């Protein structure tokens, strides 16, 4: 099979990660992939593709799609051609990610303590204090190790050979890491030979790293070896598979709200042997639902009294309550300023230019340029309710403009980016499709990033939306070892 040479998708001319800039044949890190594709007949690949699907169905990795009828447990399409990042690219990404996540944590801490950043006049106070992600209940409370976001999923897009930008920060309960792990597992089962030819850095130890990180943020009153549990909203949640997968691989209990109770500000699990104390909760439930006594009283997913136990220092919640203040889309434009303010460093990873529609000047610009821009809900996620100007009809643009004028605060706008493309194996052969990357950053006593991440692919030709709820797929993401031969010579 011969890959398409150029990544012309009809919409935007994008950087193709395999074939590179115009004139280049194949970028070095893809050389073995190119040879593999050239020597493998299309039918063999087709066969492997079906095998992969069977594999995923058997393991039961599914993703529930909201607002759509049909199969409640749908498989996310998996593409068998890996995405390859070389050591230099990863070096740039990982230092940029670490820097960014340090700043996001420093910001959350500042917001709930002295608010230096507001005093310095770097951000409008109402943007923070009236933000839906802001939790006044957290004022003056210091979580263990001062960490707010223990698990961050940072969405990156690539615009050129050395150009990576952050599109979105996810500081609350980012999901997708199980796909990173299962994609690797599937690839190793399907193409063991391919792995023999490359030196690919491992991602399999992610659950161990996560457990380490969670234990390192045990609460001050933890009596001994910390007992960790993963709190899930239950098996109807779209990410339930991931919750069970991670709990299993960490060897910790997967609990629902009703499995926990609080007595004298201490959290216990109900077990067949009676109550058992819990010290660290990796929670995959939103703040709102954690504790009906403090947050939404109608929540049946959480545990009454959990928040008081947290504030009393008897349990750690990861991520912290109120961590969402750092990932709000209206806060996002200020992250580069945070990096300079808290760390005194120049940002290693850029932001995407963003117009806040709540700002009247920005709104004017956005309304004038709707046909070129991408407009998103400031609080939305999953790719729902967004407008992609260049791909929208005149009517769609007009009706969106109405919404925008009516509720400008709820939207942000960004330029339509030429997301990089990677070759994807589709019905008709190889074709370039736009991708993004979500690496996972773990923060406890120290910061750890497993080399890799979740690559999401917009499977529809020309589409720029990679969300699985919008027909996106995933692929395995390889980070290659540094070339041992050259740098260190004694």
């Amino acid at each position: 099979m011969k890959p398409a040479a150029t990544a012309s998708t009809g919409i935007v001319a994008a950087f193709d990660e395999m074939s590179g800039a115009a004139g280049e044949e194949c970028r070095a890190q893809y050389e073995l992939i190119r040879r593999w594709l050239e020597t493998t007949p299309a039918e063999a690949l087709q066969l492997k593709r079906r095998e992969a699907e069977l594999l995923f169905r058997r393991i039961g990795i599914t993703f529930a799609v909201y607002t759509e009828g049909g199969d409640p447990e749908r498989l996310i399409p998996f593409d068998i051609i890996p995405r390859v990042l070389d050591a230099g690219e990863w070096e740039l990404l990982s230092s940029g990610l670490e820097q960014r996540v340090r700043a996001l944590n420093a910001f959350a801490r500042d917001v709930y303590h002295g608010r230096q950043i507001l005093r310095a006049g770097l951000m409008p106070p109402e943007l923070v204090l009236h933000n839906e992600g802001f939790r006044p209940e957290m004022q003056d409370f210091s979580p263990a190790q001062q960490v707010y976001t223990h698990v961050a999923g940072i969405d990156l897009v690539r615009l050129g050979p050395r150009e990576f930008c952050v599109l979105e920060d996810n500081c609350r309960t980012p999901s997708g890491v199980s796909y990173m792990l299962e994609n690797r597992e599937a690839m190793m089962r399907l193409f063991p030979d391919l792995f023999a030819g490359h030196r690919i850095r491992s991602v399999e130890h992610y659950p161990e790293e996560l457990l380490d990180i969670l234990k390192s943020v045990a609460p001050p009153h933890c009596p001994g070896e910390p007992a960790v549990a993963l709190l899930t909203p239950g098996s109807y949640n779209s990410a339930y598979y991931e919750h069970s997968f991670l709990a299993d691989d960490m060897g910790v209990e997967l609990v629902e709200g009703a499995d926990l109770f609080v007595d004298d500000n201490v959290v216990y699990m109900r077990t067949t042997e009676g109550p058992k104390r819990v010290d660290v909760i990796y929670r995959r439930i939103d703040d709102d639902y954690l504790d009906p006594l403090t947050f939404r009283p109608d929540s049946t997913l959480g545990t009454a009294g959990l928040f008081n136990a947290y504030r009393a220092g008897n349990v750690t919640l990861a991520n912290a309550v109120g961590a969402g203040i750092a990932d709000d889309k209206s806060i996002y434009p200020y992250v580069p300023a945070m990096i300079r303010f808290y760390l005194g460093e120049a940002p290693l990873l850029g932001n995407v230019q963003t117009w806040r529609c709540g700002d009247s000047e920005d709104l004017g610009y956005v309304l004038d340029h709707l046909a070129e821009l991408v407009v998103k809900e400031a609080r939305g996620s999953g790719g729902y309710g967004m407008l992609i100007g260049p791909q929208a009809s005149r009517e769609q643009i007009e009706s969106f403009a109405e919404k925008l004028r009516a509720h400008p605060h709820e939207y942000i706008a960004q330029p339509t980016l030429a997301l990089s493309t990677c070759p994807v194996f589709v019905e008709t052969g190889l074709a370039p499709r736009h991708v993004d990357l979500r690496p996972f950053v773990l923060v406890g006593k120290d910061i750890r990033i497993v080399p890799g991440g979740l690559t999401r692919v917009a499977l529809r030709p020309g589409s720029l939306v990679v969300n699985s709820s919008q027909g996106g797929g995933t692929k395995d993401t390889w980070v290659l070892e540094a070339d041992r031969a050259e740098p260190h010579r004694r």
Partner: protein
Amino acid sequence: MLSRTADSLYWLARYMERAENLARIVMAGYRMASTARSLENPGNEWHSTLLAAGCEPGFLAKHGEATAALVIDYLVRDADNPSSIFSCLETARRNARAVRTALTVDMWDALNETWYQARTGNRFAVRPESLPSLLEWVKERSLLFNGAYANTMLRNDAYYFTRLGTFIERADNTARILDVKYHVLLPRHEGVGGALDYYHWQAILRSVSALRSYHWVYQDRLKPWLVAELLMLRPEMPRSLLSCYEEIVGHLDLLAEAYGGKRGECHRIAGELHARLRFGRIQDIFQSGLHEFLTEFIDRSLLLGSEITALYLV
């Protein structure tokens, strides 16, 4: 382990066992109805099948008259019937999904694949000619699940709860089949039973796959008190009440051991029922009333279930 996890394991085992039992009961009913057609109104047969499956009230509320097609549909594929085979497979898989971390890969595979196959294609579009192969398939899937958990689970509390679920369900099922048919097992004034009685005894044995076992154990023609003895008191018969209670008592003891010797009312009830079966004699049971014995047994089993729940599962 989490009480909820134990609860789900217990119930998923019960539902898989129930699906298998239903498959056997429907198969026996199907056979009985076709053999007995010339002898008696076959509708009665389907009515007692409903009773044996414990699905009579729900069925009557929905359908009224018990015709073959309606009963089969209700017991096999009706999603409105929480105890239909289809619903059992769904519920078992839902429980499995809620406690995935407590399952072995092989258990999960067995449950997940069963559920997937049940939902795809028209496997459950019941036509008379495809009914036997569907019921065979259900039995196979249940046997696969039982084998998967017996061969792959760690021998710890998770296994004990799964095992309890299987045998409590199985004991209940055997007792109900016997109770629905107890009248054909009672001695008659006019002496030897007719051909129809013989078919009934056969059907009882078939619905717990014990016809061949009977011949191996007794080397005798079918006699109603021996049929009852085999299914109630014989330790070598794997679906007899005694066999089930050997397992139940054994696994409750293992749980008590695992949890520092803590015991509860469930241990006492199980031990008492076990002793009655272990030392009971079939002629005494017939003398004091087979129906009374079975009714009380079913009630005590129910109580046992709720005591297990109270001690471990909430």
